[in-house]
């Protein structure tokens, strides 16, 4: 496992340096942390598009992207994310290791670009560039419009909303709200930009580079003192709630079904390892119970999948089926869960699920950003990622513990989009 060097970049900002010779490129990620607010999502999505496409030095979408391409096809991205009361906005750059292009200045050029995208945006006393702002706002609106075209994600979002306030993080779409996006003005975006640059941030670097040189370069451009620290929790149990079935009628060939369960096991709970294993046993691979029974034995679907949300304590099963088979699928999903609760769980199933999860963990070291993302995810819950410890945790889960967690699964309701009402 790579050793991580932790360097302070001011009052509440940190730099984490990780080195490996495995990859052909170097990755740098800057993550800003803010308090969640439902308007954040929409405004920051517009801001992210704006910042990623122009700077004062490269004052058009074309010029800015041409410059990014000219750094040997570097990739630049800006992503927003949120969970409970934490909202993050990440800027990342991935560029080729200079040894392949014999250009040592590439590292500094990449860092300057990342810095300029954040701290030297195309803004003056008149605000943002009107044309680029309109393009970015319109792009965000199109993204929201297109999101609901995928039936399963449409039903999934409807089901999630049954559990909580429409403006809470759990219910919100990562693309924001159409209403808020439409009303966004250049002034709104500037005020959110000011929130961003005063927020605490962490920087993560991974790849092959000279440690001291990288540390100095990052310090040269990112040593900031003006951040405001705040406390947050990225997870919180959303209380149990049973809801009436959601039936959405639409002239589709294949019905989309989402079944919701309450599973009160959160990220800080030791039972989370058993809960993750349970998910794989039930519906995480082609050999999982639901796949074997509902797809292979009964031929009711082509795919069946699941999501375990350890931030809110929810478990969802999702599948595409023929409308007439919805009741059969509901019945068989329930039967499989009940069977596990009664102890019908084979040692080989437990072993398989444990191995799948351990392999997933190990493989994070095989991708440049996989490693960075894993460390960052643990930092968000104030923990240090320790691969050996995590593997031990999975290995120590017993069959009985998985059965106990399965008993906590409580059916809440379902949503279905189909030709006819069920």
């Amino acid at each position: 496992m790579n050793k991580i060097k932790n360097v302070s970049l001011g009052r509440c900002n940190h730099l984490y340096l990780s080195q490996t010779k495995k990859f052909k490129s170097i990755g740098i990620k800057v993550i800003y942390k803010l308090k969640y607010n439902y308007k954040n999502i929409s405004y920051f999505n517009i801001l992210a598009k704006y910042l990623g496409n122009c700077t004062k030095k490269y004052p058009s979408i074309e010029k800015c992207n041409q410059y990014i391409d000219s750094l040997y096809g570097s990739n630049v991205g800006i992503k927003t994310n949120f969970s409970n009361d934490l909202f993050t906005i990440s800027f990342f750059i991935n560029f080729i290791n200079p040894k392949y292009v014999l250009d040592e200045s590439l590292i500094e050029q990449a860092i300057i670009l990342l810095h300029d995208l954040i701290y030297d945006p195309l803004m003056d006393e008149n605000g943002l560039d009107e044309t680029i702002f309109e393009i970015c706002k319109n792009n965000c609106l199109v993204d929201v419009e297109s999101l609901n075209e995928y039936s399963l994600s449409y039903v999934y979002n409807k089901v999630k909303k049954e559990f909580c306030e429409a403006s809470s993080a759990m219910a919100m779409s990562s693309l924001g709200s159409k209403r808020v996006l439409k009303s966004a003005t250049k002034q709104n975006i500037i005020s959110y930009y000011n929130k961003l640059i005063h927020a605490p941030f962490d920087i993560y670097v991974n790849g092959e580079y000279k440690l001291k040189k990288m540390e100095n370069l990052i310090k040269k451009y990112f040593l900031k003192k003006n951040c405001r620290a705040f406390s947050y929790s990225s997870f919180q149990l959303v209380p149990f709630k049973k809801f009436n079935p959601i039936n959405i009628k639409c002239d589709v060939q294949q019905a989309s079904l989402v079944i919701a369960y309450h599973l009160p096991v959160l990220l800080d709970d030791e039972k989370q390892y058993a809960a993750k294993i349970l998910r794989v046993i039930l519906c995480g691979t082609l050999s999982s119970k639901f796949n074997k029974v509902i797809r292979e034995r009964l031929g009711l679907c082509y795919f069946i999948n699941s999501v375990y949300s350890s931030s809110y304590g929810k478990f969802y099963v999702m599948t595409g089926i023929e409308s007439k088979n919805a009741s059969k699928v509901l019945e068989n999903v329930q039967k499989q869960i009940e069977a596990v609760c009664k102890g019908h769980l084979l040692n080989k199933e437990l072993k398989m699920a444990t191995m799948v999860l351990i392999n997933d963990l190990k493989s994070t070291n095989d991708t440049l950003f996989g490693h960075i993302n894993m460390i960052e995810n643990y930092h968000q819950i104030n923990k240090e990622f320790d691969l050996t410890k995590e593997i031990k945790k999975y290995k120590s889960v017993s069959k009985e513990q998985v059965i106990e967690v399965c008993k906590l699964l409580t059916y809440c309701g379902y949503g279905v989009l189909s030709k006819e009402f069920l």
Partner: protein
Amino acid sequence: MKKIIYKNIDEVVYQVTLKNNMNVILLYKPNFIEKTAYIVSKFGHFDSIRKINLNGKEVQIPWGAAHFLEHRMFNINNQDASDLFSKFGAYCNAYTTYEKTTYFFSCQSHFYECLKILLEMVDSFSSTDEQINKEKSIIIQEAKMYQEEPIHLLTANIFDQAYFNHPINHEVIGTVETINQINKEELSEIFNIFYNPANLTLVVAGDILPSQLEEFLNKNLLKEKSNVIIEPLKISEPEKVKKEMSTIYLPTINTTRFAFLFKLKAIQDAKEKDKMYFCYNFILDYLFSDSGKLSEKWLSEKIISTLLEYSIYSNIDLDCIIFYNIGEEIDLVVENIKKVFNKNQEFTMSLKEFEDMKKCYYGRTIKSYETVGGLCSNFVYDLYTSCNDFFLETQEVRSLTLNDIYKAYQNICEAVTTLVVLRGD
């Protein structure tokens, strides 16, 4: 195994042809935990234009047969291969494309146990009528799922509208009707002809010792099943399109979408085909990518509301480009694309811009070699479709000239076009 070193990019490849004529390639990636293996049959969707001999009668291979067979190959002596892989915590899957069918697994440990399962999967075919009937219901569900995916629907319809004889005008999965026609005897015969070791390539990637791999493969040689000589496919296709425009409907969508296809003259010479493929990519990126000459202009003039998306298809007797976009101003977008690719229009790219694009391509390509899974899947993607040495593609691109670009531009200008619009209810 023969060792090939690509010093400038730190890549090492081993290759061997086994006694049974199966080709084996090892992409050596030291220090990676992940190990992966892909076995690729040179039998894909397009092969449905072939005829096979069944009980003394010549019959055409049903549409969807390659994909159907892919599903059934997971049956090893009535055990599901995915169950066998999962014992080792390995992930496995398969996919059928136009010219090949690919089976693969990825693991962190027990590599040789997994490789044995993968080899067993493609070494024999066994399915009962009952299993085949159950598979039909699963595949029909899959087909219905695709019918509700906007991009899939647009692509399938535009190919059908553009091509008369080329098998691209049929869907890889087949139709409910052709899926229902498929039977055990046909699948078994197809297997015997097209899953012969000489028609298979094994591509392995990871921290694996070449000598150990070769020894293992020689001990686990696949059976030779038939001696039928498989002739290369030849498809004759007129230059015109079936129809110039159509509108289709999907009740779940809120925004109108369209696909606009340029049916290019299919290039026969393999080297020239590869070269033109790169040139088409360069031209489209130059004009329509994030940094494209026209992207920001068209967005600000409200000709388009999101970036134009594009795909280039280069395959057996087939070269075409499809543009995709969202919005109601379809005529305006189509008219503007047509204007760009008008013979009378002047198209220029400066030498500096051209060299910058080569630099960008070089960096992106080298980066794409950095993970075990990504490298192996990219390598397999090019297998049977490109005549270039995979790791020398960056050199091929470096040797391109501006004249090649202008020639490719002319090819696009000479293409016939067709349009499909997808609307909600």
